[in-house]
């Protein structure tokens, strides 16, 4: 089911009655193709859960439209939308067994849509098998681990074959190992069912690893939409660049002078087409290459060996934070010794931003 959000806006009245309304979601416009897995990503309080509630119908938008396929569902109550929602804390009914929990949405159906009893049980078993909890059917939720409860919640959301599946922070209550496993699981289930799925997360790694598309939000405004790798490689603005990637991107105050990108005293790169003047420069950690003749001269603070890679913590006067961090292959780390180190920078790992608007500057290339 294709899902279209058109100028979707949600404002809440201010606690302080005289204050301005709080805009939780601001003109969200996005078309989600059928059968994709979309990660809604942003820091806490950026409006991603509100967006999910708007799609599910638990909240009504202030303005804008929501379409499932060609059907306008903006005015429909949640029960008529045919969405499945997995809550952050799963919201399994504690007094019902796993089987009863999964059967619950089916038993709500009326008239022709209501399957026979055997049909319901068969569907519940099928959903349980899909998430691999068919051996736990007679237990109560309190007798399950967090990961198992999560699967039950997914099975309950899937059993009625929703048009859209929504997951609110599906992995946040799981431990690190289970999180890795479960996100693969979500990917598999989504592939097998082909249901258009949107999940909310504040963990960028989670979103990057399994999504077909990610939507980065901040303060209720969509910052960028695209496939994970392309958003990572081509951020639209400084916020997206900073939000994606671990360790985070290093930000420097720079300048384009006589066609040279200059960081402090160091002329690091000859550019073509970049406007002269101040720029904010983002360099991904993997963009540093140790080079005894390199133009980027830095203080060396620490070298952290992490197996395959080595993390070099350096200082530079142009750096906006106290230190910056570069990731280099461990075999190159002999170059990092003493008090200073020199780098050359990989041009495709450098992003230039307008210091005022923080929008990315794209019309430049490296001079031959």
């Amino acid at each position: 089911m294709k899902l279209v959000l058109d100028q979707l806006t949600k404002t809440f009245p201010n606690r302080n009655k005289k204050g301005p309304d709080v805009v939780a979601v601001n003109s969200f416009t996005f078309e989600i193709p059928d059968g994709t897995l979309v990660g809604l990503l942003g820091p806490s309080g950026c409006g991603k859960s509100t967006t999910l509630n708007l799609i599910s119908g638990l909240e009504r938008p202030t303005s804008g439209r929501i379409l499932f396929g060609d059907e306008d569902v903006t005015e429909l109550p949640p029960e008529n939308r045919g969405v499945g929602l997995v809550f952050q804390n799963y919201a399994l009914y504690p007094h019902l067994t796993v089987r009863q929990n999964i059967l619950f949405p089916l038993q709500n159906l009326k008239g022709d849509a209501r399957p026979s009893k055997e049909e319901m049980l068969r569907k519940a078993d099928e959903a349980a098998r899909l998430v691999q909890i068919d051996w736990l059917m007679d237990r109560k939720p309190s007798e399950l681990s967090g990961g198992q409860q999560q699967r039950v919640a997914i099975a309950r959301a899937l059993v009625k074959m929703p048009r859209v599946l929504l997951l609110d922070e599906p992995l946040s209550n799981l431990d690190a190992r289970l999180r890795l496993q479960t996100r693969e699981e979500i990917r598999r289930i989504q592939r097998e069912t082909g249901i258009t799925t949107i999940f909310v997360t504040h963990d960028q790694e989670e979103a990057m690893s399994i999504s077909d598309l990610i939507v980065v939000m901040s303060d209720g405004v969509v910052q960028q939409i695209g496939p994970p790798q392309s958003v990572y490689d081509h951020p639209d603005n400084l916020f997206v660049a900073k939000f994606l990637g671990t360790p985070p991107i290093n930000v420097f105050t720079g300048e384009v002078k006589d066609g040279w990108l200059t960081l402090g005293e160091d002329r690091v790169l000859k550019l073509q087409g970049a406007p002269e003047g101040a720029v904010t420069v983002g360099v991904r950690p993997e963009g540093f290459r140790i080079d005894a003749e390199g133009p980027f001269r830095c203080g060396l603070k620490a070298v952290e060996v992490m197996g395959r890679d080595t993390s070099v913590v350096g200082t530079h006067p142009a750096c906006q934070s106290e230190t910056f961090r570069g990731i280099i292959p461990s075999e190159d780390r002999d170059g990092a010794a003493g008090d200073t180190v020199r780098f050359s920078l990989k041009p495709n790992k450098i992003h230039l931003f307008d210091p005022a608007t923080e929008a990315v500057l794209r019309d430049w290339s490296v001079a031959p």
Partner: protein
Amino acid sequence: MKTQWKAWLYLLPAVAFLGVFMVYPLVDVLVYSFEEGYNFASQSYSGVGLFNYSYVLHDPYFLQAVKNTFLIVIITVPLSTGLALLISLGLSSIRKLRDLFQTVFFLPYVTNTLAVGLVFMILFKKTAYTDGMVNLLIQFFGGTGVDFIEGPYWAKMFVMCFYTIWVVMPFKILILTSALASVNQVYYNAARIDGTPRWRMFTRITLPMISPMIFYLVITGFIGAFKAYSDEVALFGTNLNAAGMNTIVGYVYDMLYGNSGGYPSFASAAALILFAIVFTITCINLLISRNNVQY
């Protein structure tokens, strides 16, 4: 061993008080109930046996008291709990004036029993000057009035139950509104997403979630109703036997203090019979709740 010794030392004051003021009198009551022909003045008795029980169980006043008590229990406990649930549901689904209504519903709880009795007098009692407000209303709509305080048995029982329900409901409303408020909203959201009809939401989610509280109210309600006495006095005066509205506790009281000196042996036997009834009913309640209250 040493820590155990210390523990007992700390428990000693409580154990001593309970022993002197609870256990000893209870045992004493048990002993009294088997002593035949006990005389309070001379502290002597003529024999040991089950005569006291036999007497009490054949006493028409006691049988009337048992009948009254059972009627009050059977009528008021389910009705008051059900009504309280309805009112709590109403209270939790309105926003405006909620505090006002909560206060109004809670008023009977903080009002003195006898003052409430007076209000009921005005509502129901026939005097030389007026037939009572309820009778006036009945007559206004073309019915014939009935004497609720000194009239037929069913009319008195009606007033009694009405009164009991009115008195016990505030506490139940208080407990149930807080129980309803403590049900996590996320369950209702989940149910809404799944298109659950309102009635099913109530029976499959709300009721099971608050069932521990309902059973608590039913059990305490049963015990409270079995111990009814002061409400009867407030409505019908102290001579409850004459009014035919005595309860088991009232019978025990009459036996203890009636006829200057009274019959402590009969009172003890009646009290133990009451204990046996309440104990049995509570056990049944607990057994049922164990099978039905799910978490």
